[in-house]
Protein backbone atom coordinates (compact mmCIF):
# COMPACT_ATOMS: atom_id res chain seq x y z
CA UNK A 1 0.00 0.00 0.00
CA UNK A 2 2.73 2.40 1.01
CA UNK A 3 4.55 1.63 -2.18
CA UNK A 4 1.44 2.26 -4.24
CA UNK A 5 0.81 5.64 -2.69
CA UNK A 6 4.46 6.50 -3.19
CA UNK A 7 4.16 5.65 -6.87
CA UNK A 8 0.95 7.61 -7.30
CA UNK A 9 2.35 10.63 -5.47
CA UNK A 10 5.57 10.64 -7.47
CA UNK A 11 5.64 13.47 -9.97
CA UNK A 12 5.85 11.68 -13.31
CA UNK A 13 5.53 14.85 -15.35
CA UNK A 14 9.31 15.26 -15.41
CA UNK A 15 9.56 12.13 -17.56
CA UNK A 16 7.31 13.41 -20.34
CA UNK A 17 9.92 15.52 -22.07
CA UNK A 18 12.74 12.95 -22.08
CA UNK A 19 10.37 10.20 -23.21
CA UNK A 20 8.95 12.39 -25.98
CA UNK A 21 12.47 13.19 -27.09
CA UNK A 22 13.35 9.50 -27.05
CA UNK A 23 10.27 8.73 -29.11
CA UNK A 24 11.04 11.38 -31.72
CA UNK A 25 14.62 10.21 -31.79
CA UNK A 26 13.63 6.57 -32.24
CA UNK A 27 11.03 7.34 -34.90
CA UNK A 28 13.25 9.69 -36.87
CA UNK A 29 16.05 7.13 -37.02
CA UNK A 30 13.72 4.18 -37.63
CA UNK A 31 12.02 5.82 -40.60
CA UNK A 32 15.19 7.37 -41.96
CA UNK A 33 13.99 10.93 -41.55
CA UNK A 34 17.56 11.80 -40.70
CA UNK A 35 20.88 10.36 -41.81
CA UNK A 36 21.65 7.57 -39.32
CA UNK A 37 25.35 8.17 -39.81
CA UNK A 38 24.73 11.62 -38.40
CA UNK A 39 22.29 10.65 -35.69
CA UNK A 40 22.68 7.16 -34.30
CA UNK A 41 19.49 5.44 -33.16
CA UNK A 42 18.87 4.84 -29.44
CA UNK A 43 19.26 1.13 -30.09
CA UNK A 44 22.66 1.70 -31.68
CA UNK A 45 23.76 3.68 -28.63
CA UNK A 46 22.53 0.90 -26.37
CA UNK A 47 24.29 -1.77 -28.37
CA UNK A 48 27.48 0.27 -28.52
CA UNK A 49 27.24 0.58 -24.76
CA UNK A 50 26.65 -3.12 -24.14
CA UNK A 51 29.38 -4.07 -26.60
CA UNK A 52 31.86 -1.82 -24.81
CA UNK A 53 30.71 -3.11 -21.44
CA UNK A 54 30.94 -6.77 -22.46
CA UNK A 55 34.29 -6.50 -24.21
CA UNK A 56 35.66 -4.76 -21.14
CA UNK A 57 36.64 -1.72 -23.13
CA UNK A 58 34.30 0.47 -21.10
CA UNK A 59 35.84 -0.66 -17.80
CA UNK A 60 39.36 -0.08 -19.08
CA UNK A 61 38.42 3.45 -20.11
CA UNK A 62 36.39 4.15 -17.01
CA UNK A 63 38.97 2.87 -14.55
CA UNK A 64 41.74 4.75 -16.35
CA UNK A 65 39.71 7.95 -16.09
CA UNK A 66 38.81 7.35 -12.45
CA UNK A 67 42.37 6.57 -11.41
CA UNK A 68 43.58 9.68 -13.18
CA UNK A 69 40.77 11.62 -11.52
CA UNK A 70 41.64 10.32 -8.06
CA UNK A 71 45.36 10.93 -8.42
CA UNK A 72 44.80 14.50 -9.47
CA UNK A 73 42.16 15.00 -6.79
CA UNK A 74 44.43 13.69 -4.01
CA UNK A 75 47.33 15.84 -5.16
CA UNK A 76 45.16 18.94 -5.52
CA UNK A 77 43.49 18.42 -2.13
CA UNK A 78 46.84 18.00 -0.41
CA UNK A 79 48.27 21.14 -2.00
CA UNK A 80 45.05 23.08 -1.45
CA UNK A 81 44.76 22.16 2.22
CA UNK A 82 48.38 23.03 2.91
CA UNK A 83 48.28 26.31 1.00
CA UNK A 84 44.84 27.38 2.23
CA UNK A 85 45.82 26.38 5.77
CA UNK A 86 48.99 28.44 5.61
CA UNK A 87 47.12 31.46 4.27
CA UNK A 88 44.37 31.06 6.85
CA UNK A 89 46.56 30.51 9.90
CA UNK A 90 49.13 33.17 9.18
CA UNK A 91 48.21 36.80 8.53
CA UNK A 92 51.76 37.32 7.33
CA UNK A 93 51.42 34.63 4.67
CA UNK A 94 48.09 36.06 3.57
CA UNK A 95 49.56 39.53 3.38
CA UNK A 96 52.52 38.54 1.22
CA UNK A 97 51.19 35.69 -0.91
CA UNK A 98 47.42 36.24 -0.85
CA UNK A 99 47.18 38.91 -3.57
CA UNK A 100 49.28 36.83 -5.96
CA UNK A 101 47.06 33.82 -5.31
CA UNK A 102 43.89 35.81 -5.91
CA UNK A 103 45.31 37.31 -9.11
CA UNK A 104 46.34 33.91 -10.52
CA UNK A 105 42.86 32.61 -9.73
CA UNK A 106 41.51 34.95 -12.42
CA UNK A 107 43.11 32.89 -15.18
CA UNK A 108 40.57 30.47 -16.63
CA UNK A 109 41.52 26.89 -15.79
CA UNK A 110 41.82 25.69 -19.37
CA UNK A 111 44.12 28.56 -20.24
CA UNK A 112 46.80 26.67 -18.28
CA UNK A 113 46.76 23.76 -20.68
CA UNK A 114 49.15 25.07 -23.35
CA UNK A 115 51.69 26.02 -20.70
CA UNK A 116 51.30 22.75 -18.80
CA UNK A 117 51.76 20.80 -22.00
CA UNK A 118 55.01 22.68 -22.64
CA UNK A 119 56.27 21.96 -19.14
CA UNK A 120 55.01 18.44 -18.50
CA UNK A 121 54.54 17.05 -22.00
CA UNK A 122 51.36 15.41 -23.19
CA UNK A 123 51.40 12.29 -21.04
CA UNK A 124 49.98 11.23 -17.71
CA UNK A 125 51.99 13.70 -15.54
CA UNK A 126 50.51 16.65 -17.44
CA UNK A 127 46.98 15.28 -17.07
CA UNK A 128 47.31 14.66 -13.35
CA UNK A 129 48.90 18.08 -12.83
CA UNK A 130 46.04 19.73 -14.66
CA UNK A 131 43.43 17.91 -12.58
CA UNK A 132 45.33 18.80 -9.42
CA UNK A 133 45.37 22.45 -10.45
CA UNK A 134 41.62 22.37 -11.02
CA UNK A 135 41.11 20.94 -7.51
CA UNK A 136 43.69 23.19 -5.86
CA UNK A 137 41.83 26.49 -6.24
CA UNK A 138 38.45 25.65 -4.68
CA UNK A 139 40.06 23.62 -1.89
CA UNK A 140 42.64 26.29 -1.04
CA UNK A 141 40.08 29.10 -1.16
CA UNK A 142 37.53 27.32 1.02
CA UNK A 143 40.15 26.11 3.49
CA UNK A 144 41.32 29.70 3.84
CA UNK A 145 37.82 31.03 4.33
CA UNK A 146 36.89 28.21 6.68
CA UNK A 147 39.82 28.95 8.95
CA UNK A 148 39.04 32.65 8.87
CA UNK A 149 35.49 31.87 9.97
CA UNK A 150 36.76 30.68 13.37
CA UNK A 151 35.30 33.15 15.82
CA UNK A 152 37.64 35.36 17.73
CA UNK A 153 35.89 34.63 21.06
CA UNK A 154 36.48 30.92 20.63
CA UNK A 155 40.08 31.55 19.75
CA UNK A 156 40.46 33.58 22.92
CA UNK A 157 38.94 30.77 24.94
CA UNK A 158 41.50 28.43 23.42
CA UNK A 159 44.20 30.87 24.46
CA UNK A 160 42.85 31.03 27.97
CA UNK A 161 42.72 27.26 28.18
CA UNK A 162 46.29 27.24 26.90
CA UNK A 163 45.61 24.66 24.26
CA UNK A 164 48.67 23.52 22.38
CA UNK A 165 48.75 24.32 18.66
CA UNK A 166 47.81 20.73 17.87
CA UNK A 167 44.88 20.82 20.31
CA UNK A 168 43.77 24.16 18.88
CA UNK A 169 43.73 22.64 15.43
CA UNK A 170 41.80 19.60 16.63
CA UNK A 171 39.23 21.24 18.92
CA UNK A 172 38.88 24.74 17.52
CA UNK A 173 39.98 25.21 13.92
CA UNK A 174 38.86 21.93 12.35
CA UNK A 175 35.31 21.87 13.74
CA UNK A 176 34.74 25.55 12.88
CA UNK A 177 36.18 25.24 9.42
CA UNK A 178 34.57 21.88 8.62
CA UNK A 179 31.58 23.13 6.58
CA UNK A 180 33.75 25.33 4.37
CA UNK A 181 36.33 22.55 4.07
CA UNK A 182 33.67 20.18 2.81
CA UNK A 183 32.37 22.77 0.38
CA UNK A 184 35.90 23.02 -0.98
CA UNK A 185 36.30 19.24 -1.26
CA UNK A 186 32.90 18.92 -2.89
CA UNK A 187 33.69 21.61 -5.45
CA UNK A 188 37.09 20.01 -5.93
CA UNK A 189 35.44 16.70 -6.76
CA UNK A 190 33.21 18.33 -9.39
CA UNK A 191 36.11 20.26 -10.89
CA UNK A 192 38.29 17.15 -10.89
CA UNK A 193 35.85 15.24 -13.08
CA UNK A 194 35.53 18.18 -15.44
CA UNK A 195 39.31 18.49 -15.61
CA UNK A 196 39.70 14.74 -16.20
CA UNK A 197 37.48 15.08 -19.23
CA UNK A 198 39.37 18.16 -20.39
CA UNK A 199 42.75 16.53 -19.86
CA UNK A 200 41.71 13.60 -22.02
CA UNK A 201 40.57 15.93 -24.80
CA UNK A 202 43.62 18.13 -24.84
CA UNK A 203 46.54 15.89 -23.99
CA UNK A 204 47.73 12.82 -25.85
CA UNK A 205 45.58 9.76 -26.39
CA UNK A 206 45.46 7.16 -23.63
CA UNK A 207 42.59 5.01 -22.37
CA UNK A 208 39.89 7.14 -20.82
CA UNK A 209 36.22 7.90 -21.22
CA UNK A 210 36.80 11.41 -22.58
CA UNK A 211 39.31 10.02 -25.01
CA UNK A 212 36.82 7.46 -26.29
CA UNK A 213 34.39 10.31 -26.99
CA UNK A 214 36.99 12.24 -28.96
CA UNK A 215 37.80 9.04 -30.86
CA UNK A 216 34.14 8.51 -31.60
CA UNK A 217 33.86 12.00 -32.98
CA UNK A 218 36.91 11.62 -35.18
CA UNK A 219 35.68 8.36 -36.65
CA UNK A 220 32.15 9.67 -36.86
CA UNK A 221 30.74 7.10 -34.44
CA UNK A 222 27.86 9.04 -32.99
CA UNK A 223 26.78 6.07 -30.86
CA UNK A 224 30.15 6.02 -29.13
CA UNK A 225 29.98 9.77 -28.42
CA UNK A 226 26.48 9.49 -27.03
CA UNK A 227 27.13 6.62 -24.66
CA UNK A 228 30.31 8.38 -23.57
CA UNK A 229 28.23 11.45 -22.80
CA UNK A 230 25.86 9.39 -20.70
CA UNK A 231 28.67 7.68 -18.80
CA UNK A 232 30.30 11.05 -18.13
CA UNK A 233 27.01 12.43 -16.85
CA UNK A 234 26.33 9.38 -14.69
CA UNK A 235 29.79 9.40 -13.11
CA UNK A 236 29.52 13.12 -12.42
CA UNK A 237 26.14 12.58 -10.79
CA UNK A 238 27.42 9.67 -8.68
CA UNK A 239 30.47 11.60 -7.48
CA UNK A 240 28.20 14.51 -6.58
CA UNK A 241 25.79 12.27 -4.65
CA UNK A 242 28.68 10.55 -2.89
CA UNK A 243 30.11 13.89 -1.77
CA UNK A 244 26.69 15.08 -0.61
CA UNK A 245 25.98 12.03 1.50
CA UNK A 246 29.48 11.99 2.98
CA UNK A 247 29.16 15.65 3.82
CA UNK A 248 25.81 15.13 5.49
CA UNK A 249 27.08 12.19 7.48
CA UNK A 250 30.30 13.81 8.63
CA UNK A 251 28.67 17.12 9.54
CA UNK A 252 25.73 15.52 11.35
CA UNK A 253 27.10 16.50 14.76
CA UNK A 254 26.47 20.15 13.88
CA UNK A 255 22.70 19.68 13.95
CA UNK A 256 22.62 18.39 17.52
CA UNK A 257 23.85 21.44 19.31
Amino acid at each position, binding site marked *: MALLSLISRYDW*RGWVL*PLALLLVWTLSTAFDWVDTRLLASPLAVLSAFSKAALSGELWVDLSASLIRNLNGFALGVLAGLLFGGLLGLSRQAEH*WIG*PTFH*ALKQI*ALFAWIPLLSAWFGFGEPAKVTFIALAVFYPVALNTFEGIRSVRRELYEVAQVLRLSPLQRLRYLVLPSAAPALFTGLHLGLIYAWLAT*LGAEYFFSAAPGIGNSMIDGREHFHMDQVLYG*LMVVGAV*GLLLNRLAQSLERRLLRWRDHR
Partner: protein
Amino acid sequence: MSNLPLISWRPLSLRADISRFSAPSLLWVGSKASALVFPALLLVLWQVAVNRHWVSAQILPPPSLVLESLLQLWHSGDLWRELSISLERVLIGFVLGSAAGLLLGIGMGLSRTLEAYVLPSFQAISQVPVLGWIPLLMMLVGIDESLKYLVIAKAVMVPITLNALAGIRNIPKGYLEVAQVYQLGLAQRLRRVILPAALPSLFTGVRFALTKGWIALVTVELLASSEGIGYLMVDGRQMFQLDLVIVGMLVIGVVGLLLDQGLAWVEMRLQRWQRPAF
Protein backbone atom coordinates in the same frame (compact mmCIF):
# COMPACT_ATOMS: atom_id res chain seq x y z
CA MET B 1 44.46 32.86 37.35
CA SER B 2 40.89 33.99 36.95
CA ASN B 3 41.68 37.60 36.14
CA LEU B 4 44.57 36.82 33.89
CA PRO B 5 42.47 36.36 30.77
CA LEU B 6 40.81 39.70 31.32
CA ILE B 7 44.13 41.49 31.25
CA SER B 8 45.35 39.87 28.12
CA TRP B 9 41.98 40.15 26.48
CA ARG B 10 41.31 43.89 26.74
CA PRO B 11 44.42 45.37 25.18
CA LEU B 12 44.17 42.85 22.40
CA SER B 13 40.78 44.00 21.22
CA LEU B 14 41.69 47.64 21.79
CA ARG B 15 44.70 47.29 19.59
CA ALA B 16 42.61 45.77 16.86
CA ASP B 17 40.20 48.68 17.06
CA ILE B 18 42.91 51.28 16.82
CA SER B 19 44.54 49.74 13.81
CA ARG B 20 41.20 49.43 12.10
CA PHE B 21 39.83 52.90 12.57
CA SER B 22 42.68 55.33 12.95
CA ALA B 23 45.11 53.91 10.43
CA PRO B 24 46.51 56.87 8.46
CA SER B 25 46.14 56.60 4.72
CA LEU B 26 49.93 56.43 4.35
CA LEU B 27 49.95 53.17 6.27
CA TRP B 28 47.12 51.89 4.13
CA VAL B 29 49.02 52.71 0.94
CA GLY B 30 52.08 51.06 2.42
CA SER B 31 50.23 47.86 3.20
CA LYS B 32 48.71 47.81 -0.29
CA ALA B 33 52.10 48.40 -1.88
CA SER B 34 53.74 45.67 0.16
CA ALA B 35 51.26 43.21 -1.38
CA LEU B 36 53.18 43.78 -4.60
CA VAL B 37 56.51 42.85 -3.01
CA PHE B 38 56.04 39.11 -3.35
CA PRO B 39 55.01 39.10 -7.01
CA ALA B 40 57.79 41.59 -7.76
CA LEU B 41 60.36 39.34 -6.08
CA LEU B 42 58.96 36.38 -7.97
CA LEU B 43 59.31 38.21 -11.27
CA VAL B 44 62.87 39.27 -10.45
CA LEU B 45 63.77 35.70 -9.51
CA TRP B 46 62.17 34.47 -12.72
CA GLN B 47 64.10 36.97 -14.82
CA VAL B 48 67.39 36.24 -13.07
CA ALA B 49 66.84 32.49 -13.38
CA VAL B 50 66.50 32.81 -17.12
CA ASN B 51 69.33 35.31 -17.53
CA ARG B 52 71.71 33.05 -15.60
CA HIS B 53 70.50 30.06 -17.63
CA TRP B 54 69.20 28.17 -14.61
CA VAL B 55 66.19 27.39 -16.78
CA SER B 56 65.98 27.70 -20.52
CA ALA B 57 64.13 30.72 -21.89
CA GLN B 58 62.19 28.33 -24.09
CA ILE B 59 60.62 26.55 -21.15
CA LEU B 60 60.15 29.70 -19.10
CA PRO B 61 60.22 32.87 -21.19
CA PRO B 62 61.47 35.75 -19.02
CA PRO B 63 59.05 38.52 -17.98
CA SER B 64 60.91 40.97 -20.20
CA LEU B 65 60.19 38.82 -23.25
CA VAL B 66 56.54 38.40 -22.24
CA LEU B 67 56.20 42.16 -21.89
CA GLU B 68 57.91 42.68 -25.22
CA SER B 69 55.54 40.28 -26.98
CA LEU B 70 52.57 41.88 -25.28
CA LEU B 71 53.61 45.35 -26.45
CA GLN B 72 54.36 44.06 -29.93
CA LEU B 73 50.96 42.37 -30.19
CA TRP B 74 49.33 45.50 -28.81
CA HIS B 75 50.99 47.89 -31.27
CA SER B 76 50.57 45.70 -34.32
CA GLY B 77 46.86 45.48 -33.55
CA ASP B 78 46.97 41.68 -33.56
CA LEU B 79 45.98 41.45 -29.93
CA TRP B 80 42.97 43.64 -30.41
CA ARG B 81 41.92 41.77 -33.54
CA GLU B 82 42.00 38.35 -31.85
CA LEU B 83 40.38 39.75 -28.73
CA SER B 84 37.56 41.41 -30.64
CA ILE B 85 36.83 38.10 -32.40
CA SER B 86 36.65 36.37 -29.03
CA LEU B 87 34.54 39.09 -27.45
CA GLU B 88 32.12 39.01 -30.34
CA ARG B 89 31.68 35.27 -29.89
CA VAL B 90 31.05 35.71 -26.19
CA LEU B 91 28.56 38.49 -26.84
CA ILE B 92 26.54 36.49 -29.37
CA GLY B 93 26.60 33.33 -27.28
CA PHE B 94 25.72 35.33 -24.20
CA VAL B 95 22.74 37.01 -25.85
CA LEU B 96 21.45 33.68 -27.17
CA GLY B 97 22.00 31.89 -23.87
CA SER B 98 20.51 34.58 -21.69
CA ALA B 99 17.45 34.97 -23.93
CA ALA B 100 16.81 31.22 -23.68
CA GLY B 101 17.62 31.21 -19.98
CA LEU B 102 15.32 34.13 -19.22
CA LEU B 103 12.44 32.62 -21.16
CA LEU B 104 12.88 29.26 -19.50
CA GLY B 105 13.53 30.62 -16.02
CA ILE B 106 10.67 33.13 -16.03
CA GLY B 107 8.35 30.60 -17.66
CA MET B 108 9.09 28.01 -15.00
CA GLY B 109 8.88 30.69 -12.34
CA LEU B 110 5.40 31.68 -13.44
CA SER B 111 4.02 28.21 -14.02
CA ARG B 112 4.49 25.32 -11.64
CA THR B 113 3.16 23.01 -14.33
CA LEU B 114 5.86 24.01 -16.79
CA GLU B 115 8.40 23.58 -14.01
CA ALA B 116 7.18 20.07 -13.28
CA TYR B 117 7.55 19.10 -16.93
CA VAL B 118 10.81 20.85 -17.79
CA LEU B 119 12.95 21.23 -14.69
CA PRO B 120 14.02 17.56 -14.30
CA SER B 121 15.21 17.39 -17.91
CA PHE B 122 16.90 20.75 -17.55
CA GLN B 123 18.76 19.60 -14.48
CA ALA B 124 19.82 16.38 -16.16
CA ILE B 125 21.23 18.34 -19.08
CA SER B 126 22.98 20.88 -16.90
CA GLN B 127 24.55 18.11 -14.84
CA VAL B 128 26.76 17.16 -17.76
CA PRO B 129 29.45 19.85 -18.02
CA VAL B 130 29.73 21.93 -21.19
CA LEU B 131 32.90 20.06 -21.98
CA GLY B 132 30.99 16.79 -22.24
CA TRP B 133 28.69 18.22 -24.89
CA ILE B 134 31.47 19.50 -27.13
CA PRO B 135 32.18 16.25 -29.06
CA LEU B 136 28.47 15.76 -29.71
CA LEU B 137 27.98 19.36 -30.78
CA MET B 138 31.01 19.09 -33.05
CA MET B 139 29.34 16.20 -34.85
CA LEU B 140 26.03 17.98 -35.10
CA VAL B 141 27.10 21.49 -36.14
CA GLY B 142 30.76 21.12 -37.16
CA ILE B 143 33.52 23.27 -35.72
CA ASP B 144 32.43 26.61 -37.12
CA GLU B 145 31.18 29.68 -35.33
CA SER B 146 27.88 28.04 -34.48
CA LEU B 147 29.73 25.55 -32.26
CA LYS B 148 31.23 28.41 -30.26
CA TYR B 149 27.90 30.19 -29.94
CA LEU B 150 26.16 27.02 -28.80
CA VAL B 151 28.81 26.09 -26.24
CA ILE B 152 28.85 29.61 -24.77
CA ALA B 153 25.05 29.82 -24.85
CA LYS B 154 24.75 26.52 -22.95
CA ALA B 155 27.23 27.70 -20.32
CA VAL B 156 25.35 30.99 -19.97
CA MET B 157 21.85 29.56 -19.99
CA VAL B 158 22.16 27.32 -16.93
CA PRO B 159 22.93 29.92 -14.24
CA ILE B 160 20.51 32.45 -15.74
CA THR B 161 17.63 29.97 -15.80
CA LEU B 162 18.27 28.77 -12.27
CA ASN B 163 18.66 32.28 -10.87
CA ALA B 164 15.58 33.60 -12.66
CA LEU B 165 13.60 30.68 -11.26
CA ALA B 166 14.94 31.13 -7.74
CA GLY B 167 14.41 34.90 -7.93
CA ILE B 168 10.76 34.48 -8.80
CA ARG B 169 10.18 31.69 -6.29
CA ASN B 170 11.59 33.86 -3.52
CA ILE B 171 9.30 36.81 -4.14
CA PRO B 172 7.37 37.43 -0.92
CA LYS B 173 3.80 36.15 -1.25
CA GLY B 174 2.43 39.52 -0.20
CA TYR B 175 3.66 41.22 -3.37
CA LEU B 176 1.83 38.76 -5.57
CA GLU B 177 -1.31 39.04 -3.47
CA VAL B 178 -1.27 42.81 -3.84
CA ALA B 179 -0.90 42.36 -7.59
CA GLN B 180 -3.91 40.07 -7.49
CA VAL B 181 -5.95 42.56 -5.53
CA TYR B 182 -5.16 45.24 -8.08
CA GLN B 183 -6.09 42.74 -10.81
CA LEU B 184 -2.92 43.42 -12.76
CA GLY B 185 -2.61 41.66 -16.10
CA LEU B 186 0.30 39.35 -16.82
CA ALA B 187 2.35 42.04 -18.57
CA GLN B 188 1.85 44.49 -15.76
CA ARG B 189 2.52 41.88 -13.12
CA LEU B 190 5.78 41.02 -14.85
CA ARG B 191 6.81 44.62 -15.34
CA ARG B 192 5.74 46.10 -12.00
CA VAL B 193 6.10 43.25 -9.53
CA ILE B 194 7.90 40.13 -10.67
CA LEU B 195 10.88 41.53 -12.58
CA PRO B 196 11.81 44.23 -10.04
CA ALA B 197 11.52 41.77 -7.17
CA ALA B 198 13.52 39.07 -8.94
CA LEU B 199 16.14 41.49 -10.27
CA PRO B 200 18.85 41.04 -7.63
CA SER B 201 18.86 37.27 -8.00
CA LEU B 202 18.65 37.60 -11.77
CA PHE B 203 21.62 39.89 -11.87
CA THR B 204 23.71 37.55 -9.78
CA GLY B 205 22.89 34.94 -12.39
CA VAL B 206 23.90 37.23 -15.23
CA ARG B 207 27.22 38.06 -13.63
CA PHE B 208 27.98 34.44 -12.96
CA ALA B 209 26.84 33.52 -16.46
CA LEU B 210 29.16 36.01 -18.15
CA THR B 211 32.14 34.57 -16.28
CA LYS B 212 31.02 31.07 -17.26
CA GLY B 213 30.61 32.16 -20.87
CA TRP B 214 34.10 33.62 -20.97
CA ILE B 215 35.59 30.41 -19.57
CA ALA B 216 33.59 28.33 -22.07
CA LEU B 217 34.88 30.50 -24.90
CA VAL B 218 38.49 29.95 -23.83
CA THR B 219 37.89 26.20 -23.70
CA VAL B 220 36.24 25.96 -27.08
CA GLU B 221 38.82 28.22 -28.72
CA LEU B 222 41.63 26.09 -27.39
CA LEU B 223 39.91 22.98 -28.69
CA ALA B 224 38.73 24.08 -32.11
CA SER B 225 39.44 27.51 -33.55
CA SER B 226 41.61 29.25 -36.08
CA GLU B 227 41.31 32.72 -34.59
CA GLY B 228 40.63 34.40 -31.30
CA ILE B 229 42.57 34.72 -28.08
CA GLY B 230 42.52 30.98 -27.37
CA TYR B 231 43.92 30.28 -30.80
CA LEU B 232 46.72 32.77 -30.12
CA MET B 233 47.79 30.51 -27.28
CA VAL B 234 47.46 27.28 -29.26
CA ASP B 235 49.54 28.85 -32.00
CA GLY B 236 52.16 30.03 -29.52
CA ARG B 237 52.31 26.56 -28.02
CA GLN B 238 52.75 24.86 -31.38
CA MET B 239 55.63 27.17 -32.31
CA PHE B 240 56.95 26.77 -28.77
CA GLN B 241 56.72 30.51 -28.17
CA LEU B 242 55.61 30.31 -24.59
CA ASP B 243 55.75 34.08 -24.26
CA LEU B 244 52.67 34.20 -26.49
CA VAL B 245 51.02 31.56 -24.32
CA ILE B 246 51.66 33.61 -21.19
CA VAL B 247 50.43 36.79 -22.88
CA GLY B 248 47.24 34.90 -23.70
CA MET B 249 46.84 33.78 -20.07
CA LEU B 250 47.31 37.36 -18.86
CA VAL B 251 44.80 38.74 -21.33
CA ILE B 252 42.26 36.04 -20.45
CA GLY B 253 42.65 36.78 -16.75
CA VAL B 254 42.38 40.54 -17.17
CA VAL B 255 39.40 40.40 -19.52
CA GLY B 256 37.61 37.95 -17.21
CA LEU B 257 38.19 40.28 -14.29
CA LEU B 258 37.05 43.34 -16.24
CA LEU B 259 33.85 41.63 -17.39
CA ASP B 260 33.01 40.62 -13.83
CA GLN B 261 33.89 43.98 -12.30
CA GLY B 262 32.06 45.84 -15.07
CA LEU B 263 28.90 43.90 -14.32
CA ALA B 264 29.37 44.40 -10.59
CA TRP B 265 29.42 48.14 -11.27
CA VAL B 266 26.30 47.97 -13.44
CA GLU B 267 24.63 45.88 -10.75
CA MET B 268 25.35 48.52 -8.15
CA ARG B 269 23.98 51.33 -10.34
CA LEU B 270 20.89 49.42 -11.42
CA GLN B 271 19.90 48.51 -7.92
CA ARG B 272 20.53 51.87 -6.37
CA TRP B 273 16.79 52.49 -6.07
CA GLN B 274 16.65 49.47 -3.83
CA ARG B 275 18.96 50.79 -1.13
CA PRO B 276 17.31 50.40 2.23
CA ALA B 277 16.72 53.68 4.04
CA PHE B 278 18.25 52.58 7.32
